[in-house]
């Protein structure tokens, strides 16, 4: 991507980072990061553990201040749909699937929320149906499987009509069929409503056909571009500073290289504290 294209995008960008720097003490996660995500654009964020992928999401949510540079998210937090990294819900929780989804609609509003109950119910039902969760909508969330909970999370993020969708490993713990269901839902949403999508993942293949651009982070270095530009042996070798081979098998991309190129291993929030 050339500088001219970047400026062009920034005029109506849903997410705009300028010279963004994030560091903890001496450790710089990334620096000089310029990123504009246009409405309707699907950006995958890739990189090994501890490269600051989840931290980037936290910055966009306003939970983590930048060490330098600026960040802007269209519409503010109320227009953000957020699918957090999977964490099992307490099995004794007095909460049903439909309650969890309902939070995404108006959980931030003051008051008890008894007005517009019928309209609210209809929208929640619709969101539940869209992820195929109608069947277990009234079950206690804590008794559901990880995959079932994750589909509720997706419905929760989409029901609020977001302008920006931030997804942190949303496909983790889903089987292949539901990986497809969830990524298709997110794709349909951004096409229908021009929602910008930032999708943190350790595994690009399930979403490869959907991805417009990739942000690849490695130890403070990064590269932004289309998958064809970034997912090459040369680029990744430069990023990792060790010999990395990118192999394309049919429609899939496989990264073969040093051990810390952990493409097949999920990362955890704790690692990136």
């Amino acid at each position, binding site marked *: 991507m050339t500088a001219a294209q970047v400026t062009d995008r920034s005029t109506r960008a849903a997410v705009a980072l300028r010279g963004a720097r994030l560091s903890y003490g001496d450790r710089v996660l990334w620096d000089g990061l310029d990123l504009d995500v246009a409405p309707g654009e699907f950006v995958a964020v890739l990189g090994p553990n501890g490269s600051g992928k989840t931290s980037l999401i936290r910055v966009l949510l306003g939970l983590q201040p930048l060490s330098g540079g600026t960040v802007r998210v269209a519409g503010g937090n109320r227009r953000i749909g957020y699918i957090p990294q999977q964490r099992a819900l307490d099995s004794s929780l007095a909460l049903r699937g439909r309650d969890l989804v309902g939070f995404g609609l108006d959980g931030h509003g003051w008051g008890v929320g008894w007005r517009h109950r019928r309209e609210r119910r209809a929208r929640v039902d619709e969101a539940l149906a869209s992820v195929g969760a109608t069947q277990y909508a009234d*079950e206690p969330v804590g008794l559901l499987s990880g995959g079932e909970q994750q589909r509720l999370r997706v419905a929760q993020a989409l029901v609020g009509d977001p302008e920006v969708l931030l997804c942190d490993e949303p496909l983790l713990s889903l089987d292949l069929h539901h990986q497809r269901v969830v990524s298709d839902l997110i794709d349909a949403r951004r096409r229908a409503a021009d929602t910008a999508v930032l999708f943190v993942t350790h595994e690009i293949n399930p979403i490869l056909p959907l991805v417009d651009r990739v942000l690849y982070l490695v130890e403070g270095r990064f590269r932004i571009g289309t998958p064809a530009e970034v997912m090459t042996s040369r680029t990744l070798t430069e990023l990792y500073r060790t010999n990395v081979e990118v192999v394309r098998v049919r429609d899939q991309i496989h990264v073969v290289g040093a051990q810390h190129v952990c493409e097949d291993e999920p990362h955890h929030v704790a690692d990136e504290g």
Partner: protein
Amino acid sequence: MENFLDVGQTLDLLRYVQPMLIAGAVLGLVAGLLGPLVVTRKMAFAVHGTSELAFTGGAAALLVGIGVGYGALAGSVLAALLLGLLSRRDSDRDSVIGAILAFGLGLGVLFLALYKGRAANKFGLLTGQVVSVGSTDLWLLIGSSVAVLAVLAFIYRPLHFASVDAAVATARGVPVRTLSVVFAVLVGVATALSVQLVGALLVLSLMITPAAAAVRVTASPVRATVLAVVFAEVSVLGGMVLSLAPGMPVSAFVTAVSFLIYLVCRLMSGKRERVQ
């Protein structure tokens, strides 16, 4: 023991204890509404800690000769603020509560040792006694309860969101931290009010047990709240009425009734889980 179920005597006494029953009904409502949120937020220990500090405040009030109710209120609100501000992380909440609770309890014991008045007052602070719910106390109680419920109604939805799903709530712009301090203060006020009725040691039987029972039998937040209110009312009013004829401490009966309800709910939920 033969007057345990003396209906005539109980009816006779009811007239005298009407203010106490009103106080109990109001407390049952407040405790029942707060309870499910307290349980969801895993604050049982915080409630216990707060009630011990209400005891300290009450003991201090006894010593300097002002209303115990005001002392208890001051003590527990201070405790709630301390807990809310000192325990920024969930992980150190337990130890912060433990440290404050121990110190507060020691202080309370010191105040009681220095107090030269009636011994019954000392015991009452810990185990509860409602001989003297005067009309001023009653109005303080009703006024505080209305204030607690008004604030709760205003913050209910974002508070509930933050209680079950803090990460997403924060992402959506809910002031999670502020809400948790405000809620701690609400719990503090409710705790202080309950202390006068069931005593510092047994506040849990009003604030926790009914809600813990309710969430065993339903996953719907609304139904859980309604059930918690019903359970709290049955415990507090039932316990009071049962305590009249034998002339025993109210708290013994309130805790017994609420625990019985809890046991029944546990048994029911045990069956439900096995069926699934």
